[in-house]
């Protein structure tokens, strides 16, 4: 396999590899954080004592790594790169060399972030949100080059994904096979496109902000420093104007994977294809006007709280529709519980809880109490973990045969699901209670506070569950590598799925298809009256004789 390849399938796997590396690193930070919270003032097994500023670095890098170096490369870049050309019937992306460049810029960003751990002063420690003035003056954190490199790594990552976004959008608009109209595109593609548009239009202000913060740190400007006439709150607006749409950028591709898998294993069309698309577009647009719900208590004008509360509550409606559509897809289906299906169902179940806790946070007066507590942490882990990990695993188990030409072990996959589901809930469900008690975010030692005494046993329980959750992931790692080397060889279409990628070889040849596919119908014709089988591929031409039979 060429390392400097312009083949979208190779590039997808490169993004996947780097993303999985960072997932393991992010998991390690989580282990250390949880140990410290359960047993402060003790040595973390395998590491040693954790000083308070090191702890701040851990929580900062955990967030940064998971959002920007796990979720984005795996959900957007890996799945998007692999699936978009195949699903639309194209040979590759519109700009294969730009695609290659975007991966290597991302790889460079990864190296820059990795290097930040090893510079004097350590890596960034001002939170993944990097609020100034804490982040604007080295003296406030004791971190100098670590934060500068953090900003540089983010800027490079943004550049990489902007290039990717251009590619995805241009490809999906222009390289569709004959007959592949927009409303015959699989939902995976619609979700990727919406995510790409949201990302491209929202990241600009944060790039501006990152330039400004870097200048404050290195050149002596005072954008965010009040002693020079600057405004700390300006960063918050620039950050969250991007930061909020960003969570939907991460969420939508995961939802897309689930929307693809549910019909296959229910043998039913997705319920409400067009309603889902319109909802997604509405959610995308609304995502640009909710950002200040992260800033209710920031000191911004209190009159702004109500408008942002309203937009925030409104955005729950399109996502509610998508959830209802997923449930309706199961209704009167013929459901089989393969490993991908279990993870897809897990995504749905977990995401519902995450979405519902969002209602609490979006209510400004309730947020007075909940802001900066572990209730918020529980909320976003339910939404993000479902969208990234449950959906990501669903996608990996489902498309592994197509990507690597081999089948993964089903039994191991089912056990992996069961353990992940149980331990995930064991970690994050009690975390709501911890937050309601009032435990603040980003504190290294809850035992320093008398009012938190009652929930310290919960912190210990959560830590034990978290360690078990992390250990359970070895089942996936073992399954992944063993199947790569010795899994049963996969046929073209092991799942009897309708979309175009399943018509070609597993794995596909360099140019993807032996002949340019021609598309005749939507991707979700399962149990269609037009076919005697319970599936009907997009590219199958029905003879008049078969079409007449119903």
């Amino acid at each position, binding site marked *: 396999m060429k390392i400097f390849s312009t083949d979208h399938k190779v590039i997808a796997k490169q993004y996947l590899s780097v993303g999985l590396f960072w997932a393991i690193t992010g998991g390690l930070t989580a282990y250390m954080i949880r140990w410290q919270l359960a047993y402060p003032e003790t040595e973390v097994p395998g590491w040693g004592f954790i000083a308070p500023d090191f702890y701040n670095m851990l929580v900062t890098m955990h967030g940064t790594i998971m959002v920007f170096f796990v979720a984005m490369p795996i959900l957007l870049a890996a799945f998007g790169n692999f699936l978009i050309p195949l699903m639309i019937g194209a040979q590759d992306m519109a700009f294969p060399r730009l695609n290659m460049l975007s991966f290597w810029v991302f790889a460079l960003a990864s190296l820059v972030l990795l290097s930040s751990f090893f510079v004097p002063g350590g890596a960034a420690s001002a939170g993944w949100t990097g609020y100034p003035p804490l982040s604007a003056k080295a003296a406030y954190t004791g971190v100098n080059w670590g934060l500068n490199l953090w900003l540089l790594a983010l800027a490079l990552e943004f550049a990489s994904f902007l290039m990717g976004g251009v590619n995805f959008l241009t490809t999906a608009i*222009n390289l569709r096979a004959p007959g592949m109209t927009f409303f015959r595109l699989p939902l995976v593609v619609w979700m990727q496109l919406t995510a790409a548009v949201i990302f491209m239009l929202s990241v*600009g202000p944060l790039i501006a902000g990152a330039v*400004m913060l870097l200048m404050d740190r290195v050149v002596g400007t005072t954008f965010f420093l009040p002693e020079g*006439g600057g405004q700390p709150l300006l960063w918050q607006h620039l950050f969250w104007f991007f930061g909020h749409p960003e969570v939907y950028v991460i969420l939508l591709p995961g939802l897309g994977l689930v929307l693809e898998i549910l019909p296959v294993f229910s043998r039913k069309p997705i319920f409400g294809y067009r309603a889902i698309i319109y909802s997604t577009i509405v959610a995308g647009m609304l995502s640009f006007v909710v950002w200040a719900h992260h800033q209710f208590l920031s000191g911004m004008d209190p009159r702004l709280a109500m408008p942002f509360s309203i937009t925030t509550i409104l955005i729950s409606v399109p996502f509610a529709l998508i959830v209802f559509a997923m449930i309706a897809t199961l209704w009167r289906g013929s459901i089989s519980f393969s490993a991908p299906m279990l993870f897809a169902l897990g995504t749905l179940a977990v995401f519902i809880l995450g979405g519902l806790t969002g209602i609490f946070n979006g209510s400004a007066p309730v947020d007075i109490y909940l802001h900066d507590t572990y209730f918020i942490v529980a909320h976003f882990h339910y939404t993000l973990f479902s969208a990234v990990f449950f959906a990501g695993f669903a996608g990996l188990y489902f498309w592994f045969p197509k990507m690597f030409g081999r089948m993964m072990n089903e039994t191991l996959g089912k056990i992996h699901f069961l353990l992940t589901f149980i331990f995930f809930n064991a970690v994050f469900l009690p975390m709501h209670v911890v937050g309601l008690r009032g435990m603040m975010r980003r504190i290294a030692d809850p035992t320093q506070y008398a009012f938190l005494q009652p929930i310290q046993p919960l912190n210990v329980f959560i830590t034990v569950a978290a360690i078990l959750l992390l250990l359970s992931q070895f089942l996936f790692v073992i399954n992944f590598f063993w199947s790569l080397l010795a899994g049963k060889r996969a046929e073209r279409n092991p799942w009897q799925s309708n979309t175009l990628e399943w018509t070609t070889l597993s794995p596909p040849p360099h140019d993807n298809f032996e002949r340019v596919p021609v598309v005749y119908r939507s991707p979700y014709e399962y149990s269609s009256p037009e076919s005697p089988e319970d599936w009907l591929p997009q590219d199958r031409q029905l003879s008049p004789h078969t079409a007449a039979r119903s």
Partner: protein
Amino acid sequence: MPRSEDMAITGMPVGKVGVWWFLASEIPVFGGLIASYVVLRLGSGGWSDASSHLNFSLALANTFVLLTSSLTMVLAFAAVEEKKPRRLQANLLLTLLLGLTFLMIKGFEYAGEIGHGFTPGAGIFWSFYYGMTGLHALHVLGGIIVNLVLLVAALRDTLRPNEHRVELAGLYWHFVDIVWIFLFPLLYLT
């Protein structure tokens, strides 16, 4: 294999669609900076004391330089369509030189301001001045590099079959020009 001049359903070549998406993502970058500047400035006073120290005539000259360079860029693309390779080379060269002139004048301005003690840390106006014009200057530099690559290819006659790239580079160059058209009044005329 797809090629960037393949026709898109939008009626535009695929490469052009790509460049427009790229420009669409650049607009919020400068938009974010400019919006921050406007909001902060409207919220407090005293900024015009600082901005009065800017060199208006140099900036005005620079505006003409950049506008002219956009003209030469358009002429370069016209030369492509009229298949006049020497005119293409001449106009690309002119654009390049005008771009370099812009940067030189900007550098001269910076030197003067810093010499008078108006460093980036001299106050919030100066933070924005150096931030916005600095980021803009970096984009001008990027455009100069792209145009240099095209010029070298034109001189070596290796531009075919990719002459449409002159138009794409032109789109980017005009964008950089338009950003300056916003920065100039916001910084120098207030």
